[in-house]
């Protein structure tokens, strides 16, 4: 793609702008789409993602709900069962717990329990993740609480172009999708986003950087830090392959296995706790499918097994990883 083509066919935007642009197009192009959540109307969402939507599309399509997360999702389930395409917002992922049953017990099982008669084409968007001084209740990662659940899809894009492609795919999807947006990447991460409608298939990982000595699998904010760390190791002659998972369920198992079979070493990096996290499933899967391809024990670089990151900078810092910590672990594993 030449520079001029790029200008004509794409725009530079950050992740929050990519979410906003995609939601806008969805409202514009599909009458069945409604957005509901706390403060999505007059306020335009706490990150201004839906700013002014209510003026253009009206309060019937951009619904300021009461503060009641279980029914935000539950009402969206009913709308979806009756043919609408609701996009429910949980203001912060930390607030999703009251709606746990509606997601796990209802949305994810609607198709299954009715043997395909009723379906639940629903998107639940929510900002997650730390590094923003969000304290205990504005910084959690929730993916491991939900990825155990068949019937649900979970997406966690890291780049603006993926945000748009995967959010479009989620809205088009005939099944419920939990769409996770890392809030620290909202304004931090910019990139080219193609114009027009396009989708990126849910369940497909992306090899961001090819390498030969070690495979790193990550998603969300940490993909950016892992990439930075991997690039810094090039100078030392350490060749790291970086895979952006993009979708957590379904998970692109073949992309992980292919990479591990090539590099023979695996490091999984995520912001969520280590115990029972996504890395545990990836490690178990690689151990089952490719143990004899491995030249070193699988490593996981994840949050410690504590309830949450604290508000104090020291506590947040201790909980979070960093490009330097990631580089050190990569170096260590490459040398094994």
């Amino acid at each position: 793609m030449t520079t001029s083509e790029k200008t004509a066919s794409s725009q530079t935007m950050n992740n929050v702008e990519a979410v906003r642009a995609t939601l806008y197009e969805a409202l514009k192009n599909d009458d069945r789409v409604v957005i509901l959540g706390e403060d999505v109307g007059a306020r335009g969402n706490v990150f201004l993602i839906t700013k002014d939507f209510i003026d253009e599309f009206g309060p019937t399509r951009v619904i300021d709900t009461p503060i009641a997360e279980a029914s935000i999702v539950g009402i969206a389930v009913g709308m979806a069962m009756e043919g609408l395409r609701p996009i429910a917002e949980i203001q912060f992922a930390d607030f999703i717990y009251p709606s746990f049953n509606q997601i796990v017990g209802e949305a994810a099982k609607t198709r299954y329990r009715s043997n395909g008669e009723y379906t639940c084409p629903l998107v639940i968007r929510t900002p997650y993740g730390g590094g923003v001084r969000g304290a205990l209740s504005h910084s959690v990662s929730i993916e491991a609480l939900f990825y155990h659940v068949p019937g649900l899809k979970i997406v966690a894009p890291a780049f603006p172009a993926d945000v748009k492609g995967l959010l479009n795919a989620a809205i088009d999807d005939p099944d419920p999708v939990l769409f996770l947006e890392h809030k620290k990447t909202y304004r931090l991460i910019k990139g080219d986003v193609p114009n027009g409608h396009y989708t990126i298939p849910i369940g497909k990982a992306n090899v961001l950087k090819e390498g030969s000595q070690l495979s790193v699998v990550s998603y969300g904010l940490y993909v950016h830090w892992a990439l930075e760390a991997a690039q810094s190791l090039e100078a030392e002659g350490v060749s790291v392959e970086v895979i952006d998972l993009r979708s957590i369920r379904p998970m692109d198992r073949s992309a992980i296995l292919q990479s591990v079979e090539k590099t023979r070493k695996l490091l999984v990096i995520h912001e969520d706790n280590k115990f029972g996290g996504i890395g545990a499933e990836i490690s178990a899967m690689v151990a089952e499918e490719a143990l004899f391809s491995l030249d070193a024990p699988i490593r996981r670089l994840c949050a410690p097994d504590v309830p949450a990151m604290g508000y104090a900078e020291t506590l947040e810092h201790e909980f979070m990883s960093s490009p330097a910590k990631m580089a050190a672990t990569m170096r260590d594993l490459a040398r094994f």
Partner: protein
Amino acid sequence: MLLQRQLDNRGFQLNRQGKVPFALGSEGHEALQAGAALAFERGKDILAPYYRDLGLCLGVGMTPYEIMLSIFARAADHNGGRQFPNHYSSKKLGILSFSSILAAHIPHAVGAAYAIVYRAEKGRAVLCTCGDGTTSEGEWHESVNFASVHRLPIVFLVENNLWAISTPIEKQMAQPEIWKRAAGYGIPGKRFDGFDPVETYACVKEALERARSGGGPTLLEGVCYRFLAHSTDDNDMTYRTKDEVTENRKSDPVPRFEAQLVEAGVLSEEEASAMKRAVLQETNDATDRAEAMPFPSATDLYENIYEGAWQPWQ
């Protein structure tokens, strides 16, 4: 009403014969559900029922054969033998699918009512039912609140049978007249005798017509009684007395309504007997037909998880 009772009994009989692992009754709810079903407009309204609504689902068009398929967990059951019996679902009849989790279906009903308004579909409403115990759930409140804010076309019908498995109403709520909560939501509320099908019909019809014509939600409370234990796995004599049940049986709505009809000259005793014989025959036929049907195949376990083929992790 007769058919509901006969099918209820059949479920319990089949369980006691060891033919089915579980059955759930609705005895005592017949009048309430017959009255409500008559007020429901087939082909237009949406029903969001709960598991005690056998009569309501029969009343809006479900057949005894479908009920028996569900009791026997056969492949042709509306849920493909996946859910417990009495977990009705029929897109054709406007019956929303629901789970066993109490109050989880109330927001779905509200979402469906929202869809009706959103598409500007005139003359349609949602009838959403639940038991008294369900009104303790947070989602019940959240849903009635949202529906009231948006004045949605929905009727919340609480079938108050005074028992939530073993928990009596006085342990469920300090103020036992559920309809009075309507004032807190700024919507009309009404309590009626759920043993009286005619009064039920009038109340539900009035509320549904208000909903269909843009008048917003109504909270209705029909008072009835649960004559049977919660299910075949429950023993109600561990928490209530035989005397209490016997006392309530004196007002059993099924023989009471029959006597009223005979006295009014609408029904002769011969006709009543013939109806009972016909209902027994219908139940027997449905039982035999359903029992002869195959179970789902084991590989059905892997179907309808997502759209299209899905390869589960093994």
